Structure formats: structure tokens, C-alpha cells
């Protein structure tokens, strides 16, 4: 009896909040009846074979054959990241990635770039917050050139000043351009406000265009950029680029045995160094370093771009599974609550979403984003805060739980959509030392999640009244916001 009452009370409350939704759910469409009668064959998944070995110097290697196209892809994951930067050299890891990508870790960048272009090789390097990756792809006929470039970049650094100066100027120019678009203004200021503390507060700078990304520099700080010199890069490389700190994965048109021989030959004289464990500084801020409403005025805008959120859970806790479901219901895709309330029902935005992000070494964030015409800025903010509040107080419905769980489990086959993707997952599992519950047992855990789990997790992690809300809009919008909200903090950037 008491159990039944427990179930009943939350349902009644939700009913009063969003009565129309529940009433509609009581009846189905003809289409959904047809779909539920459809019989689908059993899904066959072939797990691609791979080979893993560790060289005596500690280098981990994954190999996977993919003979369909005359192409080779290689990736190296390096145990590093901008989380381990020193405060007076913030941005070092990020800049190092860009310098490496530009050929700056070799004596002569021109020779490096000529070799890439002559063989049509694509090469990319990026140091993110908690990992570093290098990627190279080439035609099969250029396998040896590709491997040689990989070897040089990883094992034989000789950073050159010319490329470092070039990269710094490019970064400075990109920093100036942040003010051009509302999106990049948000991206550059939001983490700073929420995390408030180094190294978590550093912003990410995207270089190049969407179709031709030159790099993303994480943890960049305009004030410390000048402090970074060539010796820092050399030191950085020495510290992190050692064989026991690197995982290499190669997939493509080769015979495993032949490739294994080549790899052993190329990398066996890479000298092992003393193993060190890197730990980031602790994060002292709990929910947000700067809760409240912040407004950045920018001339000539007809639309406000806004983001809100706060610090959330660590990925490796077992709360992850319920949070995954919560994120899906809140704003993960079409049909989720935020798009439904703001776009579908009210037509107040084209672009609107909400996410819960995860990391391995530090806390992720809850973020909700929208773009709406200047006049409806306050209305959209209120709806979003309200939706996050409803989620915290009432959790989700049975129907939402069912949809989210089915969506998560049925789309998981996309993890096997490509051999390259499978190999990357294996490497990441290894790199982050992810527990089985987060990989092979993932779907079983998702399947067990109940509505109560989601409600508990929402109450534990959502703080709609302590969020940081950041808006970029035209100067007149400021007055409207000041009428609607108690305190609006103004940030001037121009």
C-alpha cells in the first residue's frame, strides 16, 4: 500500500505540471501501432579482430586490418593534457599540439609540410584537457612515408622557433576574432565564469574553419601566451612523449604480421624513461564560481545567444548511467524537453539544446543553450531554468524513461559502424582505464535504471537556482533583462 502511494504521489504532481503531455500519451498514433506490430530480424554484429601488443619499452600497439580501401590510418594517444599545464604557462599543451601539427616539432617545418603534401597525407595533432592525440592517414603506397613521419614527430623532436612564432601570431589573431561572433564570445567566457579556477577555467580556441580545422587550443590564456618559449615545448615533449605513455593504433590495408614487424623495428629503440603519474590540481569550486546572470552587450544583434549551467558529476562515478538518461530526456535530441518546450511548442528558437558533459579526470558540466530574438530573451531564460527545476523536483515520466533507454540501447550498434571507430574505442578504454561497467556492461547498467534513480540523481546534481547564465545580446536587451531579473552583471568586451 505504502509503495503504491509512493508511486502515485509523484505522478499526480507531474500531472498537474504538464497535464497535456500525459493526457496525449494515453493514446497512440496509427503509425506507432504499425511500428509496434513490425517484426525486425535479429541484429548481427561482427566484432572486428584486432591485435594488441606492448613493446619492451612500454609502447602499447593496436593493429586492425581493413582491406577495403588502399588507405592506412594511424593514431597515437599521448598521456598528457592542458590540465597539467602550470599556471604561468597556461596553454602550453594546447599550443604544443598546434605547433606539432604545423611541423614545428621538427627542425624544418617546410620539409615536413612538403612531404605531407607530396604524398597527400593528412596529419592532425591536438592536446585536449585530459589527453593528446596525433592522427595521420595516407594511401597504402605511402605507408612507409607515413610511419616515418609518425616516428619523427613522436620520437625525435627538435622544436623550431620559426614555427613557434608563426603559431603564436596565428593564436593572437584568432583571439582578436573571438569578439566577432556571439558563439565564440560565449565559448570564451562561460568556462571562466563557471569553473573560476585554473586549469579548469581556461577557454578553448578554435583555429581554422569548420571544414578545415587547424586546431583547438585548450586552456589558452592570452596573458601567459608570451611566457611560453621553445624550451618549454622541448621540456613538454620530453616529459610526456615517452613510450610507456603512448598508445598507437593503426587500421587499414596491411597484413597484421607485416605491420607488427614494421612497428617493432621503428619504435623499439625509443628509450623508456622513468614512469610518472600526473595528477591535476584539485577543483575547489562545487557548483559554480560565479552563479547569477551575466550579460555581454554587442551592437547590431537581432538575436540573443545564451548559455546556462553549472559544474556536474564526475564520469567515473556510478551515477553516470542515470545521468545519461537524464541528459537524453532534458535536451539531448529532438523530442527532448528543452527543444520541445522552446522550439516545438512556442517557436522561440531554432537552435536549442541541453547537455551533461563527462570527463575522466575532472567534473563535467550541465549546459543548456539557445538562440532567440532579442525580445524573447528573458522568456526563454525563464523557461529553461524552469525546465531544469522541474527535472530536479519531479524527475521524468515512465514514457520518457522508456524512450531514453530504448534510444540509448538501440543506437549502441553505431559503435560498430566502422573498424576505425572500434579501434578508437579500444584505445580510449585503455587510455582512461575505464571500468567494465562503463564499457562492456554499459547497456546492462542503463537497462536497470529506474525513474527513482533519475529523480535521485536530478536532486543530487541539478541546481537551477545556482546556475551561471550568460547572454550575448544587443545593448537594449540589457534593459529588458534588468526589468525581469533582480541582478544582471554586465561584462564589457569591446
Amino acid at each position, binding site marked *: 500500500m505504502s509503495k503504491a502511494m509512493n508511486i502515485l504521489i509523484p505522478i499526480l504532481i507531474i500531472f498537474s505540471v504538464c497535464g497535456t503531455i500525459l493526457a496525449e500519451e494515453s493514446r497512440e498514433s496509427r*503509425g506507432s501501432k504499425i511500428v509496434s506490430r513490425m517484426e525486425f530480424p535479429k541484429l548481427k554484429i561482427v566484432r572486428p579482430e584486432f591485435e594488441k601488443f606492448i613493446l619492451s619499452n612500454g609502447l602499447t600497439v593496436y593493429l586492425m586490418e581493413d582491406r*577495403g580501401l*588502399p588507405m592506412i590510418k594511424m593514431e597515437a594517444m599521448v598521456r598528457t593534457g592542458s590540465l597539467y599545464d602550470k599556471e604561468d604557462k597556461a596553454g602550453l599543451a594546447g599550443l604544443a599540439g598546434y605547433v606539432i601539427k604545423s611541423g614545428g616539432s621538427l627542425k624544418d617545418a617546410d620539409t615536413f609540410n612538403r612531404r605531407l603534401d607530396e604524398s597527400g597525407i593528412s596529419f592532425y595533432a591536438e592536446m585536449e584537457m585530459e589527453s593528446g592525440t596525433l592522427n595521420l592517414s595516407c594511401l597504402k603506397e605511402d605507408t612507409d612515408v607515413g610511419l616515418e613521419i609518425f616516428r619523427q614527430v613522436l620520437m625525435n623532436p627538435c622544436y623550431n622557433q620559426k614555427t613557434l612564432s608563426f603559431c603564436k601570431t596565428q593564436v593572437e589573431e584568432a583571439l582578436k576574432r573571438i569578439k*566577432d561572433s556571439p558563439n565564440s564570445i560565449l565559448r570564451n567566457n562561460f568556462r571562466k565564469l563557471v569553473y573560476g579556477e585554473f586549469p579548469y577555467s581556461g577557454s578553448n580556441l578554435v583555429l581554422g574553419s569548420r571544414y578545415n580545422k587547424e586546431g583547438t587550443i585548450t586552456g589558452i590564456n592570452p596573458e601567459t601566451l608570451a611566457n611560453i618559449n621553445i624550451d618549454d615545448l622541448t621540456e613538454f615533449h620530453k616529459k610526456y612523449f615517452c613510450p610507456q605513455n603512448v598508445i598507437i593504433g593503426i587500421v587499414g590495408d596491411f597484413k597484421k604480421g607485416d605491420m607488427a614487424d614494421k612497428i617493432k623495428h621503428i619504435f623499439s629503440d625509443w628509450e623508456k624513461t622513468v614512469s610518472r603519474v600526473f595528477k591535476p590540481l584539485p577543483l575547489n569550486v562545487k557548483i559554480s564560481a560565479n552563479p547569477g546572470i551575466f550579460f555581454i552587450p554587442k551592437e*547590431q544583434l537581432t538575436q540573443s545567444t545564451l548559455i546556462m549551467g553549472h559544474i556536474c558529476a564526475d564520469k567515473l562515478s556510478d551515477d553516470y548511467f542515470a545521468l545519461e538518461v537524464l541528459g537524453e530526456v532534458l535536451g539531448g535530441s*529532438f523530442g527532448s524537453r528543452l527543444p520541445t518546450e522552446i522550439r516545438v511548442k512556442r517557436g522561440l528558437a531554432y537552435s536549442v539544446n541541453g547537455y551533461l558533459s563527462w570527463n575522466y579526470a575532472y567534473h563535467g558540466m550541465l549546459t543548456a543553450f539557445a538562440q532567440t530574438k532579442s525580445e524573447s530573451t528573458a522568456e526563454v531564460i525563464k523557461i529553461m531554468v524552469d525546465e531544469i527545476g522541474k527535472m530536479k523536483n519531479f524527475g521524468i515520466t515512465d514514457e520518457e524513461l522508456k524512450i531514453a533507454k530504448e534510444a540509448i540501447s*538501440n543506437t549502441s550498434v553505431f559503435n560498430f*559502424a566502422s573498424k576505425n571507430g572500434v579501434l578508437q574505442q579500444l584505445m580510449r578504454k585503455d587510455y582512461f582505464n575505464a571500468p567494465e561497467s562503463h564499457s562492456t556492461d554499459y547497456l546492462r547498467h542503463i537497462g536497470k535504471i529506474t525513474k527513482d534513480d533519475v529523480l535521485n540523481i536530478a536532486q543530487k546534481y541539478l541546481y537551477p537556482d545556482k546556475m551561471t547564465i550568460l547572454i550575448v545580446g544587443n545593448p537594449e536587451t540589457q534593459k529588458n533583462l534588468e526589468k525581469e531579473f533582480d541582478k544582471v552583471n554586465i561584462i564589457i568586451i569591446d
Partner: protein
Amino acid sequence: MLKKTIGIFVIAVIIQAVMLWTFGIKDSNNNRFRIDVKECILDNGLKILIVENPEIPIVVCRINYNVGAINEKEGMTGASHFLEHMMFKGTEIFGVKDGMREKETELFMEEDIFIEDIREFGEYSDPEISKENLISIRKNLDNAKILNDLDNIIKKGGGVGYNAFTNYDQTCYMWSVPSNKLELWFLVESDRMKNLVLRDFHTEIKVVLEERRMRVENSPSSRVSSGLMEQVLSGIPYGRPEWIIGSAKDIADFKRNEIAKYYKTYYTPNNAVMVLAGGVDNNKAIELAKKYFGNIPRSDIELIDNSIFNAPIQNEENRVIIKHPASDAAAIGYKTVPANHSDATILYFISKMLSGGKTSPFYESLIKTQIANELKTYSVGYKYAGMMEISFSPNGKHNIEEIEDIIYREIEKLKDGLILAEEIRRTKKQIKADFVRGLGSLDSLVGDIIDYESVIGDWRKINDFIPAIEKITKDDITAVANKYFIPQNKSMVIMRDSRKEAKNE
């Protein structure tokens, strides 16, 4: 091939580049740059193209309609893109409670009368009564519909990347399914082709106006690139100032019956092509296509009058200056040829040779020297027109004119035949490697097949691409450069930072 496109959903779950395992590529070494596609055309004209690979447990699916902004008449700009949005609002069997469909149509008609009234008089003619009535109609509509029905059915079925895009020539719908759920895709897409219901019509107008604010009004980069289209292709539909998304006025004035007519005209089997790639069996897919699409009647499609693409003769270069609170930027454009023209491959080659990689002339002379911060060269190919676009922004101390001079200097070199054999060899290799990389992603492969089919006219031409690239000589490049890179084809858009001027005053 690069085209400007806009879509339904900017925040869609982006499909990870899906790699092929062994797929339908012929296995002898000579044929490794060819793709093998199975083709079938139903009696009603629907074309089905399939790339089989039983090893992949998913299928990437797209259906493309040959309709886009160039088909729109005056007063209806943006209709193709708006209809694309409406395609996500359900059909006669999705999105409405079983049995409520007829009631819904009545309510739509009542709603439209009120909306017309508001549009005409600016407000309710009898404020109290009418407003109450409209609210009650909408309440009844809400009661009939099932919110997010189609989205949730697709989500539950494991569908990924449910999205679409519209450009000048085409409207394309895409989502991928686990390979055992292909029938779900056929059910949904066939129903959207025959039974669309224009639900949430007036709310979606607001959404598209928000999209317009985002893409057009508040985006400095699209001001430059769209401004360039307007100049280079002026006088023909590709250069219209309303772009793909349409004018705010036309969008706000859309009527349900007009969009319904547009849908009936263009969303027919003989105006569509579907491409399926991955874990799909050819015979089974054709069986499903017949079952779900076979009974949809073909219709007469209004043929486009080709004369509207005859661009007026330009006597000298066009030059436009925009002031905007963003960093200085500019773009140079040359009018070229449609995507199916034999010079299009050479123009693409030239764009890659000029700015592909870090040893290309534009990179060496502008980026490496840090005169420009960014520079992109694209050869853009549409069904009835084309252009070469070079866009850039200067670094701190440098200016647009300085960059312009260097660009012309490099173009003059091409015209004078000052091209090294090494540059040609390098570009051929880069294009070949990029082509194979593209084949390695199911999404990009399916996208290419759709583009070749709808813009160039035949997917088979993909297999002519690498041989055509291999054949390009120095003389071809010089001839094409002299033919197209002339003042009568040239336009330029310059965006000056209005903040600088404000400070100087």
C-alpha cells in the same frame, strides 16, 4: 563539390564519420578508385541506389528531392526550406491520435482564417472574442496531435542523425538505422512522401525566422559569402538576395495551401532518388522499396525554364563594401560553369592547387608570411551555375588590398603558364588521397552519390572523376584560367570593421 546548404536542425547528433569495411569497391588494383552501385528504377520513376556491405551493422539512408530555392517563384522564397521543416511534423498516421485526423483538418482551416485575419488587419478585428476562439482552436489541435511522435519512434528504433538540408538545387533527408531496422526507414520516408500533414505550421514559421536571424542577420561570415553569391550570380536565381532561406516577409506570409501545393508538385517518386549504403541486401531493399513506395503515383513536374539561368553580361567587376562590427574580411568570386560542365573538374583542380596543403602558392605567399589569417578557395558547382570563391581575412597590420594583389599575382601566373610540373603532380596526389578518404566514410560516399545524381545528373560520373583528374595538363589549367578569371566574371565583397571607425570618430 561544395555547396551552401541550410538544414532543419543545427543541434542534431552528428554522425561520426562512418568507415566502410570492405564495401562495394571492385577488388582489382586498377579499379580501386571506382565504386560499385546497384541501381533500380521503379515503374513510378523512383530511383534506388544501393552500396552493399554485409559486414556493417548499420545502413546510411538518404532520400533526395530535386527541388530547391531555384524552383521558387516570386513571393514564395524560402518555400523549399520551409517545407523541409514541415516534413518533421508528422503525417496522416504519425503525429496525430488515431481517429482524430479529420477533426485536425477542420481545425487547421479554422486556425488559418484567424491567422489571415491577424495578418490582414494587424490585430484581431474583435480582440476579445477572436483571441479566445483562436486559443480554443489551438487547444483542440494540441489535444489531437501527439507531440514528437515521429522523433520518438525513430529514436526508439535506434535511428541516428535524423536531419535534412536544403540548397538551391535539392532537398535531402537523412538518417541512419541499425541494419535490422531498415523497414522502419521505408515506412517513415514513404509516408512522408505521400501523406505529409502541415502541422504546427504557424509555430514553425517563427522557428524559421529565428533560423534566419541566426544564419543571415547575425553571422558576419555568411554576410560575406552570401553577399558574394549575390554579386557573382546576380540576375539568376542563384544570386537572388533572399538566398536559400527566403525573405523574412515571404516566410511570415506563407499559407498552408500554398505549401501543400508545393509539396504535391515536387514530392513525387519521379522527382526523387534514394541511396542506401552499408548492411543492406540489394534484393531485400528493392522488395521493401516496391512495398512501400511502389503505389505512390508519379506526377508531372513543372520543368524549369532554363532561360532564367542566362546571366546578364557583366561589363566590369562588381565590388560591394559592407560595414559590420566584426574583423575585416573579404571574398573574391569568379563566375564559372555548372557542375556537369567539362571545365568543372579543372576548376576544382585549380582550387586545390592554389590553396590545398601547406606548400600551395596561396599558403606560401599569404598564410606562411602571416599577411592573411585565413584563406579558403572553393570551386562551387550547382546544377545551372558555378563560381570560384576565394575568401580571406587579413592579419593585424595588413590590409585586404595587399592580399588581393598577391592573389591576382598568383592567378596571373596560372594564366601565363608559370606552373611547375611538381605542383601538378602534388595536386593530383592530394586529390586522389582525399577521394579515397571520402570513400572511406559511408556518409560522405552517400552524399557524393546523391550530389552526382541530382546536380550532375548521373552517379556513374563519380567513376570518371579520378581518370579526369589524372589527364589534366598544364595547358588545360592555363586555358581554363584565361577563360574564367577575367574582370567580366569577377566580383568582390569587402566587410569593414565598423568598430574601428567608431573609435576613430
